[in-house]
């Protein structure tokens, strides 16, 4: 688990010198502090920075096949490498190392580029097939590990992080207005688009094959759901058993490491479940969590309950507003895109703590909500549909209050206005994006702050239409819950949760997160489950709670969902906030970057200051979006401070 970088001439031409590769690799040193390696043969350049986790002595990269015809540079893990290796050995292959990396080479030699289908893991790899003059790049199905690329003057350039690409001569950072507009709608750009012009992200579940001067990009795996009304073919009891068995196995193979494996414990059901499963493999499991000052955000009471019940060796990091503000510029250098929340900073601090305690690997509960129907947005969508059948109903919309018990502010909002918010798109129950329209609309309020120039540039572009056009053909046949899950799993999960809140901030401190809920077998099972086993009435993650809840304290199983949140604008507008905040949000700085309108931003900042602690969700998102965009610009386009 590491960082990779490289370039490949699509047709024979002089390749940029080795020093370029060296610089690209150095740019991702934080991902792999333990070792590095370069491969360069005049047609292809592959570089690697290593975070040693499996086969500490033998797994150096880039790694070649015994005959030197295949070379690979790889970031991630192939968790089923043990089983794959046995199978490949049975087919006559001879292994030289104990690494999972070597499995990729042998699998490719045996099966060709389709070998990726057999990998159960989190990965981004580039494999150079010298005999066929072919470069293959593949990314895992859920988007855990990153991969960015571009084609510049006939050369395919790729890397784990965008900062590495900018070490290649001629690639100049420039923010992409459409990418920004997507960030300010979907919380992240939609792959292959990124926040930067001419820089692309290989989408999750995709493979790139470059040969004979042509680059082909296609999915090797797609997330799909049964048609609405299609029979599940399994009973509730069977479903529970499958879920339990698969999750246990997904956890088992994710404990494979030659270094200690810890776990994140947020206090919520999901990470409690993964921790309980991990504990079965390690009696003295080390766990880590965050504590917040605000009672609305803090879950430490639940964490303590769990630590006592499971008997883990626990450390909690207390996260304060000043910590968030102080570290935020570094966080954005790692996210490489604007964010609409401060939560990535909290997770950045958590991974630093994990690293300080000598751990490189943690298991964590991300993905359970997407796969098993955990987010309130799913229930919300169901309630709104229920309401849409009787739009005049006064009491149907009041069900919506029950959806967000953790948002104190929401509970006190007048009914008529609550209705109005959730009414967004009520008339559009057939819109594929129905479930997410209120969230998108709220996020899009950031566009109020666009400068006239930005508005003109993106004039006529509708990100919602763009997303609609990218949906699979069968989307309309799926149950509404499945549609909502798909949107969440293909947009928010890879672009924000696994990226800005996941890989980027964990790997900033060379910590590898592992996600049992994102084992593709678990994802596929979750997709196949009948909707009623996922959200039953207003009980979300129904079958998951039944499958795994027995080993956990009751209050953990019963407690309502609380997503990771950190204090947003209030972290930045207090007395003694770091100087960069005022500097970057000043009218001069805003005018200089040109994305936002200076007076509007000044008013927003003033309002956030005045309302500190009681800032609305929309205003908080706008504040974070503007500040983080300024930081992206300052880190990559032109320093402002």
């Amino acid at each position, binding site marked *: 688990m590491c960082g990779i970088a490289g370039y490949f001439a699509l047709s024979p031409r002089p390749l940029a010198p080795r020093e370029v590769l060296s610089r690209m690799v150095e740019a991702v040193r934080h991902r792999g502090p333990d070792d590095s390696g370069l491969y360069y043969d005049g047609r292809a350049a592959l570089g690697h920075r290593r975070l040693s986790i499996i086969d500490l002595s033998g797994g150096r990269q880039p790694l070649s096949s015994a005959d030197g015809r295949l070379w690979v540079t790889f970031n991630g893990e192939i968790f089923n490498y043990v089983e794959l290796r046995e199978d490949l050995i049975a087919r006559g292959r001879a292994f030289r190392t104990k690494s999972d990396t070597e499995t990729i080479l042998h699998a490719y030699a045996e099966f060709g580029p389709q070998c990726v289908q057999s990998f159960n893991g989190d990965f981004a790899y580039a494999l150079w097939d010298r005999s066929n003059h072919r470069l293959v790049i593949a990314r895992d199905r859920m988007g855990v590990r990153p991969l960015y690329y571009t084609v510049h003057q006939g050369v395919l350039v790729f890397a784990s992080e965008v900062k590495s690409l900018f070490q290649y001569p001629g690639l100049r950072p420039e923010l992409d207005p459409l990418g920004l507009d997507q960030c300010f709608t979907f919380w992240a750009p939609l792959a292959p688009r990124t926040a930067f012009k001419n820089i692309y992200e290989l989408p999750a579940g995709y493979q790139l094959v470059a040969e004979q001067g042509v680059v082909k990009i296609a999915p090797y795996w797609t997330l799909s759901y049964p048609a609405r009304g299609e029979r599940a073919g399994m009973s509730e009891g069977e479903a529970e058993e499958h879920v339990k068995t698969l999750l246990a196995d997904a956890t088992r193979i994710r404990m494979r490491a030659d270094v200690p494996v810890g776990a994140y414990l947020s206090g919520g059901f999901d990470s409690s479940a993964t921790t309980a499963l991990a504990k079965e493999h390690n009696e003295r499991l080390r766990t880590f969590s965050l504590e917040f000052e605000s009672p609305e955000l803090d879950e430490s009471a639940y964490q303590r309950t769990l630590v006592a019940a499971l008997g883990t060796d626990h450390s909690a990091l207390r996260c304060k507003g000043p910590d968030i503000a102080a570290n935020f510029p570094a966080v954005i250098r790692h996210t490489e895109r604007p964010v609409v929340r401060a939560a990535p900073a909290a997770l950045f601090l958590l991974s630093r703590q994990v690293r300080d305690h000598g751990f490189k690997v943690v298991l964590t509960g991300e993905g359970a909500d997407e796969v098993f129907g955990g987010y309130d947005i799913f229930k919300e969508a169901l309630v709104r549909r229920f309401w849409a059948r009787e739009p005049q109903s006064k009491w149907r919309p009041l069900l919506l209050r029950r959806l967000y018990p953790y948002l104190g502010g929401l509970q*006190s909002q007048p009914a008529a206005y*609550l209705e*109005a918010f959730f009414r967004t798109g009520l008339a559009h129950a057939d819109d594929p994006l129905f479930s997410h329209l209120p969230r998108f609309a709220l996020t899009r309020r950031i566009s*109020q702050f666009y400068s006239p120039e930005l508005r003109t540039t993106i004039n006529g572009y509708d990100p919602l239409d763009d997303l609609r056009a990218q949906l699979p053909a069968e989307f309309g046949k799926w149950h509404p819950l499945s549609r909502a899950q798909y949107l969440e799993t293909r947009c928010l999960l890879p672009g924000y949760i696994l990226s800005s809140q996941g890989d980027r901030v964990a790997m900033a401190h060379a910590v590898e997160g592992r996600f049992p809920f994102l084992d593709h077998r678990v994802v596929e099972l979750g997709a196949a489950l009948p909707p009623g086993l996922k959200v039953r009435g207003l009980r979300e993650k129904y079958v998951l709670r039944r499958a795994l809840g027995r080993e956990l304290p009751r209050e953990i199983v019963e407690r309502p969902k609380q997503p990771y949140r950190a204090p947003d604008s209030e972290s930045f507008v207090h007395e003694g906030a770091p100087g960069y905040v005022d500097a970057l949000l000043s009218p001069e700085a805003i005018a200089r970057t040109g994305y936002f309108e200076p007076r509007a931003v000044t008013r*927003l900042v003033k309002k956030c200051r005045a309302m500190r602690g009681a800032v609305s969700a929309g205003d908080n998102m706008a504040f974070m979006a503007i500040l983080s965009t300024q930081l992206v610009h300052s880190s990559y386009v032109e320093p402002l401070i």
Partner: protein
Amino acid sequence: MKQDICLAVRRFISENFLFRDDGEAITHDASLLDAGIIDSTGVLELVSFLETTFGIAVQDEEMLPENLDSIRAISNYVSRKLESSKAQLVV
């Protein structure tokens, strides 16, 4: 008097919800909800402003679009509240 209320409300909305003033003027009767200017959290801010600025007490059941969803509606509502509290004092 109502003019003053109108002006104060308009300025509050402009500075706290519109953020911009590049000529996107809201008309007196424009629905603030429909225009996405004030939502369910925003209305709490508005109520807080009205109570502090005009010394009225907004009851839960009065927090309705009829009373709060346009500049005209707000001004009328505030005027009525002020009138009725004056009437009470007289009695």
